[in-house]
């Protein structure tokens, strides 16, 4: 009889092996899905997993997709470490995009080198401001930040729609729900010529390094880790819970806002009502698959980007619905949660009756 038995202490090996195991199981599951849909699994594998990395351009597209995931996930990880559950990065992402768009539209065609830096600041501030609402409600009225931040996503979506259908609609845009295209000075430069990989990628990498330094090296990060591990010890040591809620939410919001800025000032070049494309939610998965640490998040965001692009490829070449990538994301999370059980438990074969 197979039995789960609690380990004396959590296995470090499994903590690292579990994401790899989850990826492997997802691959196997994916092949089965292709077979079940009547596609050649080998061909499916090639299109889904190899096409996104087949040449420089494909790789640049992969990194482009990974950029907002990285940014959102590293910000979220800081709060998650202290048990501050910001689920609304998606909304903060949109508000960052809105604030950056506001700056771009305000400057219009002005050729100033200050436009982009101002947009970066505005994006971070917009995201942080949106995250400040759950922080305020939590610290003042003890309102659950999970619900508040989540509900604010929908408010943010409606706000964006109102802007692009109303005051910010491009007068020459044939009534499409979108703003004017940004001027040259309000668009992020490219990292690699001839691709769409913009400077936001460098910002995201820098954010990962900063996130690593904050979580692992700074006193503030240490306080947050203590609060997440043992709340009583944090209170005993005098680490302010209120401050941690603010820091966790504001940093998460600012990072998501930056990601939103990168989208409008990068590949989109304008604000549309489709700006929120799920990066903020996917980043929650990325943060956990990446074990809430910077290096893990780097790998996990690349993996998640691969799933997105693989899905698009499968739609294009295999005639499968785009939602196939959601199936893969779901499988990944499912297998990860399953494999994580083995961090704390091991499987044992036991004779009946003992």
């Amino acid at each position: 009889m197979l039995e789960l038995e609690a380990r004396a202490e959590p296995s470090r090996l499994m903590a690292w092996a579990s994401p790899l195991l989850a990826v492997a199981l997802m691959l196997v599951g994916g092949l089965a899905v292709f077979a079940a849909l009547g596609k050649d699994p080998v061909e499916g594998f090639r299109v889904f997993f190899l096409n996104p990395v087949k040449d420089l351009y494909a790789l640049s597209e992969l990194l482009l997709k990974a950029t907002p995931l990285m940014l959102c996930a590293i910000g979220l990880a800081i709060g998650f470490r202290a048990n501050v559950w910001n689920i609304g990065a998606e909304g903060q992402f949109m508000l960052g995009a809105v604030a950056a768009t506001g700056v771009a539209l305000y400057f219009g065609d002005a050729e100033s080198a200050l436009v982009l830096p101002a947009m970066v600041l505005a994006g971070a501030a917009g995201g942080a401001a949106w995250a400040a609402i759950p922080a305020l409600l939590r610290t003042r009225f003890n309102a659950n930040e999970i619900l508040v931040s989540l509900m604010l996503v929908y408010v943010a979506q409606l706000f964006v729609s109102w802007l692009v259908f109303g005051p910010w609609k491009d007068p020459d845009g044939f009534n499409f729900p979108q703003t004017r295209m940004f001027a040259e000075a309000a668009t992020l430069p490219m990292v690699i010529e001839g691709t769409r990989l913009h400077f936001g990628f460098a910002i995201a990498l820098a954010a990962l390094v900063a996130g690593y330094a904050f979580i692992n090296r700074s006193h503030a990060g240490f306080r947050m880790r203590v609060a997440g591990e043992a709340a009583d010890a944090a209170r005993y040591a005098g680490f302010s819970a209120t401050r941690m809620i603010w820091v966790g939410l504001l940093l998460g919001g600012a990072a998501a806002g930056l990601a939103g800025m990168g989208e409008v000032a990068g590949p989109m070049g304008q604000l549309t009502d489709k700006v929120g494309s799920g990066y903020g939610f996917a980043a929650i998965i990325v943060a956990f698959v990446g074990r809430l640490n910077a290096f893990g998040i780097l790998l996990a965001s690349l993996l998640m980007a691969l799933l997105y692009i693989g899905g698009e490829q499968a739609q294009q070449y295999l005639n499968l619905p785009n939602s196939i990538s959601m199936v893969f994301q779901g499988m990944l999370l499912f297998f990860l949660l399953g494999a994580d059980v083995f961090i704390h438990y091991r499987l044992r074969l036991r004779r009946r009756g003992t």
Partner: protein
Amino acid sequence: MPIPYPPLQPDTAAGPARLVLQGISKAYPTVVANHDIGLVVRAGEIRAILGENGAGKSTLMKIIYGVTRPSSGRMFWEGEEVAVASPAHARSLGIGMVFQHFSLFETLTVVENVALALPGKPALDALARRIVEVSERYGLPVDPRRHIHALSVGERQRVEIIRCLLQDPRLLIMDEPTSVLTPQAVRKLFETLRRLADEGCSILYISHKLDEIRTLCHTATVLRGGKVTGECIPAQETPASMARLMIGKELPRCEHDARQAGSEVRLRLAGLSHAADDPFGTDLRDLHLDVHAGEIVGIAGVSGNGQQELLRVISGEAPLAEKFPVQICGVEAGRLSPGRRRRLGMAFVPEERLGRGAVPTMSLADNALLTAAHNQGMVAAGFLRFGRARAFARRCIDEFDVRCGGTAAAAKALSGGNLQKFIVGREILQAPRLLVCAQPTWGVDVGAAAFIRQRIIDLRNRGCAVLVISEELDELFEICDRIAVIAKGRLSPVRAARDTSIEDIGVWMSGLWPGAEHTAGAPLATETPHA
């Protein structure tokens, strides 16, 4: 198969072997906690396990109870070889255990916690009545409806014991069950244990209180460095001779000379009143106390009489609405955070060491950062200086003789007494101006307890003000210059320790001190004291 018996014990414990261990070993990466241990426990025997902090006592008990798996060795239960897979398995065999570090669910009530340990799904109402019944019979008062997180450590310990007794075990393992019980509660518990033993229950009993072992236990096994180093009949030994067996040398004594306290007030409670956050907690009412530089003031009392609330108010974990009732080093500190109070020169040893005084999963170096970061210059420009944290943790380990795998060892991997030594060391080595200490020697072995007390006295000799809150009257009389009693949230007058006696303080502990306002006939929240 035949089980080789060691020579029979000469006294009462000659029943059939209930539990036999052969060659039990347990190796951890950094230390061999148990090495080739043999042990026989007979029906109706009360056997003590003696040993210094880190000798491997808890590890051995956890192996018997199925919490930890031995690296090698065999275990026989009532003549049959068993491999205990889990605590649930152990309970089904008839083994019960009271843990040194409590294993209660904080967010659940007492009765819910008890229900979880029992097979099936017992009805909570009936179970609550049984708990009240058992707790009254055994002199361990608890209210089954209260939540665990609101209980003091003394009360939690009562819950652990009651939970275990309700399972009608045939082998009862008690890992330091009395470390925070009052003398009266201990006496009642011993009556219970003797009765259980007479009915045939075997008991494995761990304690650092050697006189307890002498009065209770039939036999004793001595562990040192994970090995069995001897056996004895406690009734035929003195506490000093047992201490020698345990630590291999004479027991050090503390030197406490009378001294003139300084005039500077380092801690003043000026009419402190505070309503407890928890509905079952104790409200503090109009407390007045001065602790001067260069003196040790003790507060005695039965756990659950407001000690917890008082400590939280002094430490800043429960800040007040007003500033003046708590004054630290001349500053009105009632509203300051614990961190700000530390910067005024206060250090604090809390009663729970795992989870409050230390983060279980973090290393000792990280745990040094918990309270010593600013005081010891471990932060520069907002970033941590790990080298300094490690160096400070190493100093705590060296100077307080903490037996562990080094500064990288996780706090939860330390034996209970060693973690206590580390935390006390961390607070004392910050050279505080005011030290507030709850149960400073809880679970610490006799040698280390004497050492910690001496370090507290040394600190006072260097001019630090010390407030000690403890339930151990012997300890308070050994180190304190002045003593007060807390009962039902009120504080008695403070007396010079040499002008009073353990008996007087025992009476005061029920709230009956000269001039105390008490309504005649009102039932006391506490056990009545021995008079």
